[in-house]
């Protein structure tokens, strides 16, 4: 059988935070023309990746009913409102992003 295809075998070896380490090998099957089975570490071969989990580095704090907006914080509530974040490790890019309602 002269199949003529090179296959890629790939797997995930480890996960650290939002980072995956992937292993990949190319495999060439034997064929009737005398080509022997062969394999090698993959280098820049096409592969599909699907990763499922939580959204990285995001928290959302709603301040009211998302449909009726009952309970959203008014400027009077916000005059002395604060957030306290406790750092545990160095190096994260932190951003606070307000979802505000601007009146007309």
């Amino acid at each position, binding site marked *: 059988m002269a199949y003529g295809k090179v296959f890629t075998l790939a797997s995930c070896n480890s996960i650290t935070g939002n980072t995956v380490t992937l292993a990949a090998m190319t495999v060439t099957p034997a064929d009737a023309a005398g080509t022997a089975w062969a394999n090698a570490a993959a280098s820049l071969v096409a592969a599909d990746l699907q990763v499922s989990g*939580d959204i990285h580095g995001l928290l959302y704090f709603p301040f009211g009913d998302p449909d009726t907006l009952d309970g959203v914080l008014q400027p009077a509530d916000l005059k002395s409102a604060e*957030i*306290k974040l*406790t*750092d545990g490790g160095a190096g994260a890019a932190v951003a606070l992003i307000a979802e*505000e309602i601007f009146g007309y």
Partner: protein
Amino acid sequence: MPRMEIVQLMNREAQTSDTAVLRKDLPISGCVSAIDIGIRITNAATAPTDKEISDILNHVGLVCNGTDYRVWVKGPDLLRINWKQLKRPMNNALTEKASTAQEQWYRLQFGRYIGDTQLGLDLSKFNNVQLQLDYALSNFGTVGTHVTTATFTVTVLLHQFPINQRPAFRGMIGLREFWTYTTVGGPVDKVQSLPSQNTLKGLFVMAREDTIAEGTDITDIKIGKDLFATVWYDGKWYNFQQACNEDILDPSLRMTLALSDASTRSLPVANIRKVIVAGMDSTGAYS
């Protein structure tokens, strides 16, 4: 709800500069529920591995009357916020293949949903409304090596109400980054006042660092008022993250890799529960 229209304001307009602030004036009238922004680049001859296309966008802004910033958010943050808002990732076609185009979409939503007649962007309330994209291809990789020069292209779609069915909006929802910093390790407490000019619907807290477990760099969050005599939220990052992700319908990111053995990818997904990596044949024919 009226039948919404989608107006194409820009159609894959290639930018000649690889680093610039793109300023696009919106029409002078119209009631807009949301703006979709699509960015597209062409990978260069060297496959750009382990790069995030959203890094190109330093900031996405919506500026009214020249100085009134109603939206101001970084590209990677907007990607994640859209995922939370829509409960799925915005549409994309992500690939590391050399000499191939890839794209990512974002949404600025000014109402609670598309077609909201209470909240939205009424362009007639302003003298000028401008969409700003502060971008740099060099954030993605080496221009000319990983990404082809002058291939940053932008598409802008307006989800708007028909001209004869414009609602009288009470207001609009904005999204403003108001404080940034880099964590220093700890435990150290940082306290920041919340913006108080407008009604606050919600607050996004972003803390991004590759290869670090969630809940490490920021461990605890407390939100309240009057020196925390009143407390609205108080707890651990990892617990709030579970609550934050419980309603996500599609927790998966998909992309095509240019894969080498023993290589890493840092992704906008954390607390990873499933990884599927499947080799294609050597031609990568269906990607």
